[in-house]
């Protein structure tokens, strides 16, 4: 077996791995331990009810769990279109000379702090979506299904669109790199059969679908956990009808950010917020596992 240096490297790498796994275990155990009081008192009740009444020590956070799932899923769908579209545009239509500029711009977009996205979302995106999407559709009578827009336009929908814009640079770069890595001889084979460019692109996307799913899993995790920007545009209102995406509401992370400062004043609010965090972690983890499993299966 290898030299002393390679054994050293092996030990070091293993040590890092152990540290990484321990820290994940530590985070999860803190979440569990801190939420034990309310789990002990209410069981799964907080997960399935939407009554949030701290003065009576009632903490059902289904409205926020639903809000998180709705905004993250909607963001995932929008971002799927945006990131696949931009990756295809980059790999197939943008001339070689312009690529570095476009790539730098995308990387720059990924490095904008989320609070900046939040400000832009609050002052530009939400009012824009309100005036040009939510109001017209509500006028068509859809407000019964999709909810009534708030005056500022803060809503689940605004949060979803903002999240989609935020996660697209990451998701898109994964898809883009894989698309560029499709071997030239495979592309030549496809074109030599008389396929047109759109047909070849669709087959290439099928060829790299595992990476697309990975990109979406990462996008979903980020969307579920994103706090600052979402807290600024989602409206922070207790709204059990989280499928009414035009209306404002809460996500778990915005609920925690919004409520934690006063949580110490109550007996069970801190455990309730930890419980909510645990639920969010579980959802994000489950979706990730599902997406990655699905990618591996075929």
């Amino acid at each position, binding site marked *: 077996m290898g030299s002393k240096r390679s054994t050293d490297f092996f030990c070091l790498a293993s040590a890092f791995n152990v540290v990484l796994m321990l820290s994940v275990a530590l985070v999860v155990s803190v979440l569990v331990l801190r939420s034990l009081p309310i789990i002990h008192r209410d069981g799964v009740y907080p997960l399935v009810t939407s009554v949030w009444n701290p003065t009576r020590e009632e903490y059902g956070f289904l409205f926020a769990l639903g809000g998180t799932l709705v905004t993250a899923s909607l963001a995932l769908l929008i971002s799927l279109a945006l990131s696949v579209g931009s990756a295809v545009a980059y790999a197939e239509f943008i*001339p070689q000379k312009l690529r570095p500029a476009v790539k730098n711009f995308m990387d720059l977009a990924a490095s904008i702090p989320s609070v900046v996205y939040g400000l832009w979302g609050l002052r530009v995106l939400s009012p824009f979506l309100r005036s040009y999407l939510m109001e017209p559709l509500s006028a068509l009578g859809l407000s019964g299904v999709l909810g009534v827009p708030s005056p500022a336009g803060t809503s689940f929908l605004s949060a979803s669109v903002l999240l989609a814009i935020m996660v697209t640079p990451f998701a898109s770069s994964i898809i883009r790199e894989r698309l560029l890595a499709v071997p030239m001889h495979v592309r*030549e084979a496809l*074109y030599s*059969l008389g*396929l047109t460019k759109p047909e070849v692109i669709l*087959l290439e996307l*099928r060829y790299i679908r595992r990476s697309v799913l990975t990109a979406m899993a990462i996008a979903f995790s980020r969307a579920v956990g994103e706090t600052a920007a979402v807290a600024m545009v989602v409206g922070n209102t207790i709204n059990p009808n989280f499928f009414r995406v035009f209306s404002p509401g809460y996500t778990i992370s915005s609920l925690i950010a919004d409520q934690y400062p006063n949580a110490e004043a109550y007996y069970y609010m801190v455990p309730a917020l930890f419980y909510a965090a645990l639920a969010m972690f579980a959802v994000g983890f489950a979706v990730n596992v599902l997406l990655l499993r699905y990618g591996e299966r075929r």
Partner: protein
Amino acid sequence: MGIAVHVEDLWVSIGGRDILKGVNLKVPRNVVFAVMGPSGSGKSTLLRSINRILDLYEGVSVRGNVVVEGVDVYDSRTDPSMVRRLVGMVFQIPNPIPNLSIYDNVALGPKINKLVKSRRELDELVRWALEKAYLWEEVKDRLEQPASKLSGGQQQRLCIARALAMRPRVLMLDEPTSNLDTVATSEIEGLIVELKRDVTVLLVTHNPFQASRVADYVAFMYDGQIVEVGPTGQVFTRPAHKLTEKYITGRFG
């Protein structure tokens, strides 16, 4: 006997460098026509300009005429994918689509280009193409397996079947045996000779002996130009050009 491929004063440059410098070529129908020459002489570029696969690369400029079975390849009204349906191509590296099954590799082209009306017709076409490529007996029981499981020689025959399934008029092979062992090479060579009954075969090779074994006509290419063309026997026994003689006697290349 008509002309399948007619190349007239073809100039191709890539990234500002001239690769083809006024190539003229007439390929008769239903023969094996070999273009031989050393590496870098422009043989592959010549093939890639005939079916416009060259369009996939950046910085390419083409001047001159190519006519395939009456179709003016570089006419602005000509759809490149139509040209590619007319001209099948087999590449130097066997390149089955890695995530597709053996069956799907052959069926892909006919399916997307809607050459068949029913699943039964498609099955028959796939079988026909695999039989033509002498692969059917070896794969008929495992058509659903990934193409990447096949050996190199089998993969190359699969690529030939894939090209044939499009029912092309011309089949171009770009050094199809350069990545194969001697057994697989002689199988492919035998196949090439058989194929000329159905299609015109245009073969590029850097191996003059391969050209002499399979071709009816040969062209010798050097530095972006055709040095000499003629019936194989004539070129190999009485080369008109000193350079050709040096090449076929193995003194360079």
